[in-house]
């Protein structure tokens, strides 16, 4: 453990420590929901979630909640991932692990939805 030698040190440590508690704060920029019904899981939703988390970790982005939901009824589109950002819920279908990583990079972090994969869009 490094010593905290000044007010600046303490502030730096606090900002860093706060990131780790974002999930508990209810105050995040982005919410990601993955359908975890039986069909979703069979179609590979678990691997998609792992890829999402892994990519977020790699890019050190913590301002996010990763939730799971029941099936949206879009069985043929599974795995289904919805990104809620800036008041819009954008749903992607047939998400692979590679797609999940790109969604994190482009949409979750930079706010650019990837149009060709979007299957639904709703204002929140």
């Amino acid at each position, binding site marked *: *453990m490094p*010593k*905290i*030698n*000044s*007010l600046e*040190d*303490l502030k730096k*440590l*606090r900002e*860093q*420590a*706060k*990131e*780790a*508690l974002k*999930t*508990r704060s*209810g105050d*995040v920029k982005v919410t990601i929901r993955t359908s*975890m*019904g039986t069909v979703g*899981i069979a179609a590979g939703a678990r691997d998609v*979630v*792992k890829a999402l*988390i892994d990519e*977020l*970790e790699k890019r*050190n982005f*913590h301002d*996010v*909640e*990763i*939730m*799971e*939901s*029941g099936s949206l009824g879009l069985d043929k589109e599974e795995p289904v991932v919805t990104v809620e950002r800036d008041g819009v819920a954008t749903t992607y279908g047939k998400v692979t692990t590679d797609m999940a990583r790109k969604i994190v990079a482009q949409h979750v972090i930079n706010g650019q939805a990837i149009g060709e994969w979007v299957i639904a869009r709703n204002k929140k």
Partner: protein
Amino acid sequence: MKIYRLHALICAGTQCISAGGESFESALRDELKKQGLTDEVQVVETGCMGACDRGPLMIVYPEGVLYQKLKPSDAKDIVSEHFLKGRKVSRLMWKEDEAPVPGLEQIPFFARQTKIVLRNCGMINAESIDEYIASEGYTALAKALTEMSPADVVDEMKSSGLRGRGGAGFPTGIKWEYAAKQNSPVKYLICNADEGDPGAYMDRSVLEGDPHNVIEGMAIAAYAIGASQGYIYVRAEYPLAIKRLETALRQARQYGLLGQKILGTSFSFDIKLRMGAGAFVCGEETALIHSIEGKRGEPRLKPPFPAVSGLWGKPTVINNVETYASVPVIINKGAEFFRKIGTAKSPGTKVFSLAGTVNTTGLIEVPMGITLREIIFDIGGGIPGGHQFKGALTGGPSGGVIPLQHLDTPIDYESLGALGSIMGSGGLIVMDERSCMVDIAKFFLEFTVDESCGKCTPCREGTMQMYRILSDITSGKGRPGDIEKLEEMGQLIKMTALCGLGQSAPNPVLSTIRFFRDEYEAHIKDHKCPAGVCKFSEAKTEAAIA
């Protein structure tokens, strides 16, 4: 940095642990391993969440779902349904009127509280200084050291109006000012964690759940009065509190938040733990000081007050756990903020351990001035099983019973004093019509007799005589004139006992006589216990009738 999509906060306060929380936690960890979720779910041990009789408790974020009464066998459902598939397990969720409640904000027990002292309790990992720092921890100390002079800190405390939460209610800022003004190169600071009232566990819960909050409050106090050594006197019967304190002290030293030249300033301060052997009298400040000095734990006459001559004859500030735990918020948010909560004469909040016959017992924090009715019926959910409220005991063995007709009394130092009770450290025991008030008075007096240190005659002999009379009354051997004798002796002890504990020992008897005199009379004249608690032998009853 690692990202966990779920944070499972498991209450690791003493109550939840004794209700089986640890075996639930290990079952949960096993299940997480089985399902390959250990990388996605963070399991966190927190301090007391408050709703102790619904324990073991667990809060799951980001949803904020509260699960109650968890058994090891429930771990499988929670992991395979909620953690894996996002389906909350409604049969295990907190219920209001049989219906599962989605989050903490919708639960009256939590929503009606105001948390200052307990703000982190149950919300952060009790053994992580980083989580405390993430929750604005140590910013008050930093503010005091870098932006305020010691005199500024004293002034802020004085204008906050904070009063000693150990029970007597002496203004904290004025106590600090006395000590600050003493011209002595060596001064000491003590935290009184010798919580001894039967049924009270506020201080233990704060130490178990948010130890850094107390350490930070102490460091600020030390800066204000000019002390460089502090002591926490905690009873040895609190092993978990001691363990978490030791961890917290070690972490604070590693970060340089205790020790030499804190935050690069000239202020140096460290804290030592002292374990008490569990004598009630050692909660009295002068007895506690003697105990730290290695002497027999007996009180002495005041003055001189500890602020002038305390530990090893040096100026010493001694405050209770909850008092110190209130300090960081006052320094961070200002005296004005604190004054807006509570009443004019008793600003701020008070932590109570709500016990007895009430639906939801546990640890609560409420603004001063709240009524007993709101605490018992709104937060505690009322009296179970269709029974009737009879009285509530505040202040433990030094307090008294507040009866039904005073249910709307605002809770503050003065109002409780006017009713012959005291605020005390925060024990609050609710009783219904099945409790016998004479028996309750006897129970607390028996405690006092046991715990009397014996130094002064009024307490040593007087409480014993009062206890004998109460034993007679509750076994059908009461005599006319007993009530008057109890009153006379009680007043005498109040006036002549050496320390605060002796002086307040008669309170439970005097207060129950004041509000339930008819019950005493029924025992003596009619050989009847209206509550049906005291058992009189047949022979005696017949003799009395004859």
